[in-house]
């Protein structure tokens, strides 16, 4: 317990309170819930608590503990593999710009690419509800085949399970993937230093908004398509133009805001974003405004964030912009030393504010 008198000024007292909160926030979240709620799947603090208390506790090992997009594994020959898995439960299964089939391939391919790997092989497992249309299944699998060709990966193994009517909502897909990390390549948060530039490969929030509108319960119509795409090629282009790229991450569930918070915490830096630099399509920004959702927290399925040394930022930007998947790329911020572990947004209005970890998911089941 603190026993000395609190400082007399309001500013001093506020400073103390903020310090106390910061200390409190650095503790790993604890799992106190008795049952699993949707919040545990939303990628925020509840998810972290569940993973910590249940999964890490049981499986603990070095490769898992980094909790990255994928595990980095070293073969006896010295070569490094990236290995990742993800399940797909999006509702509706088809939306403007893609389907659960596209997501199932691109999502796992992108997780591998963010580790710096060249995605190579995929597995695919299907949980199908009794009564599911073979025609729809065939169409979704054709989407997966198409996405695999585009991403340059081969689906080499799989599994099928059918469950009773009501035991699943139509179709769930799990994919796992393996890729080789070229020798000498290391992308990690601990390489990020103050002064680095933060880039995004294109417009924000397209996927989440497209899926939300496709659900049709908002009576909103706008011309918005999901950005689902495989990013392996664009990553290689970036790494060729900016060879000292520090860190990559695809801002899927939880969006750019969540990913920047994870970066700020892992690298013990401040991430300072500029609101006016964020590339957001008008209909997407408009839909978010109307629904009171911050596009910084909305999922993307074909974008990545990159931290590159400031002196390579322009080359990185130019190279990405020359590729169709990177034509809207932008430098959206920079890394600062202070305030540690905080994401700040310079608002286009001229003020500044915190971008915190998201609490509760405004849009469940978007991937």
């Amino acid at each position, binding site marked *: 317990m603190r026993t000395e008198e609190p400082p007399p000024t309001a500013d001093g007292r506020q400073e103390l309170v903020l310090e106390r909160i910061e200390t409190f926030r650095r503790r790993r979240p604890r799992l106190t819930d008795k049952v699993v709620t949707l919040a545990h799947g939303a990628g925020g603090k509840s998810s972290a608590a569940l993973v910590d208390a249940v999964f890490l506790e049981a499986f603990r090992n070095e490769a898992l503990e980094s909790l990255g997009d994928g595990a980095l594994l070293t073969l006896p020959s010295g070569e490094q593999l990236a290995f990742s898995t993800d399940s797909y439960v999006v509702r509706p299964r088809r939306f403007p710009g893609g389907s659960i089939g596209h997501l199932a391939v691109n999502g796992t391919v992108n997780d591998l690419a963010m580790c710096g790997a060249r995605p190579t092989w995929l597995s695919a497992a299907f949980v199908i509800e009794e009564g599911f249309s073979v025609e729809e299944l065939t169409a979704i699998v054709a989407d997966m085949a198409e996405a695999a060709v585009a991403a340059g990966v081969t689906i080499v193994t799989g599994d099928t399970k059918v469950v009773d009517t009501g035991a699943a909502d139509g179709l769930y897909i799990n994919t796992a993937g393996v890729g080789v990390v070229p020798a000498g390549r290391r992308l990690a948060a601990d390489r990020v230093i103050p002064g680095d530039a933060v880039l995004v490969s294109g417009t924000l929030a397209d996927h989440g908004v497209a899926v939300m509108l496709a659900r049709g319960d908002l009576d909103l119509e706008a011309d918005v398509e999901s950005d689902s795409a495989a990013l392996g090629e664009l990553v290689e282009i970036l790494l060729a133009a900016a060879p000292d790229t520090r860190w990559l991450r695809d801002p899927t569930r939880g969006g750019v805001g969540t990913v920047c918070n994870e970066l700020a915490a892992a690298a013990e830096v401040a991430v300072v974003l500029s609101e006016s630099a964020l590339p957001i399509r008008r209909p997407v920004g408009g839909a978010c405004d109307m629904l009171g959702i911050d596009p910084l927290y909305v999922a993307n399925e074909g974008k990545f964030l990159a931290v590159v040394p400031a002196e390579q930022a322009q080359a990185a930007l130019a190279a990405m912009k020359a590729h169709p998947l990177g034509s809207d790329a932008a430098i959206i911020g920079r890394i600062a030393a202070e305030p540690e572990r905080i994401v700040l947004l310079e608002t*286009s209005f001229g003020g500044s504010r915190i971008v915190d970890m998201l609490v509760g998911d405004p849009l469940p089941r978007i991937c």
Partner: protein
Amino acid sequence: MKYVDEYRDPAAARVAVRRITELAAGGRDGTGAPYAFMEVCGGHTHTIYRHGIEQLLPETVELIHGPGCPVCVIPMGRVDDAISLAEQPGVIFTSFGDMMRVPGSTSSLLEAKARGADVRMVYSPLDALKIAVKNPDRRVIFFAVGFETTAPSTAVTLLRAREAGIMNFSVFSNHVTIVPPLKAILDSPDLRLDGFLGPGHVSTVVGNRPYDFVSQKYGKPLVTAGFEPLDILQSVVMLLQQFADGRCEVENQYNRVVRDEGNPIAMAILAKVFTLRPHFEWRGLGFIAQSALALNEDFAAWDAERLFDMPGVRVADPKACQCGEVLKGVIKPWECKVFGTACTPETPIGTCMVSSEGACAAYYTFGRLHKTAASLAVAPA
């Protein structure tokens, strides 16, 4: 989207901030003490934090976050009632998303949903009515919250339900009215406010006249304010201008939307469906007479409070929670004993921490940063 961009123009903001700094120089009555203005609406609070407005203001102007967040003022007992309704057999319970995380005495609607209750998020009461039409064998209840802003849409939904004879739909009304809590705040002995940014959306319905007592009886100026960042700054300018001119009036900054007489059609619809409750409990403010709306006799057949049994027990706020003092502007969110440690947006104790429009949640998520630290980081490199 030109319409919105005009109200977010940084150049115009700089002009307004300069004017505020000039007008507020020397502080209130030249004492150096800051002018304390309360923004009544949660929507204002959200805008202020989202656009970083506090950091633009001089030290001689302080914004206090008021009670106008409909989620924040719902007492725990009513949340318990909602959960008990949601858990009754055959019920589909519909609610705005914000209400789902609000803690009752033992759990929240979100937790009730995880336990198996059919709780669904809707964006409008009409969506709840649609669910009732689609599920004729289920009883669909809408958890109605909000000020005069949302009450008309509940009323319209009830009129439609009656017209179409949809009898498996009902409303659990927790609608509240804006003037009584303003009076309660003005009557509070620890009041330390110099003026109000008046509620914009509520005023589109009730108009500007109901606030006359604020300037006439209590001698505090009020400017009804819009929700874009420039609206907020302009309203602060108008309040300060009143002090400079020695005036004390009710003014309307949001005149592109708000009429002095409000919206008589909406008011007439409210009168058709609702009746004033003798009293209603407000989170943190206690019981306030004639401050809430119940369904009237004509709509008894759609009134969940008459149709279902529920505990109806008053639950005292947790002892550590100082939501009431925050709502009245007596303390800043960070001055609450449990702020940011026991009470966070993930594990809210008080309602101010639940809704993104709540003063505590807004401060925690957007503003939890000392002014000097913020200016250090955003200063040009």
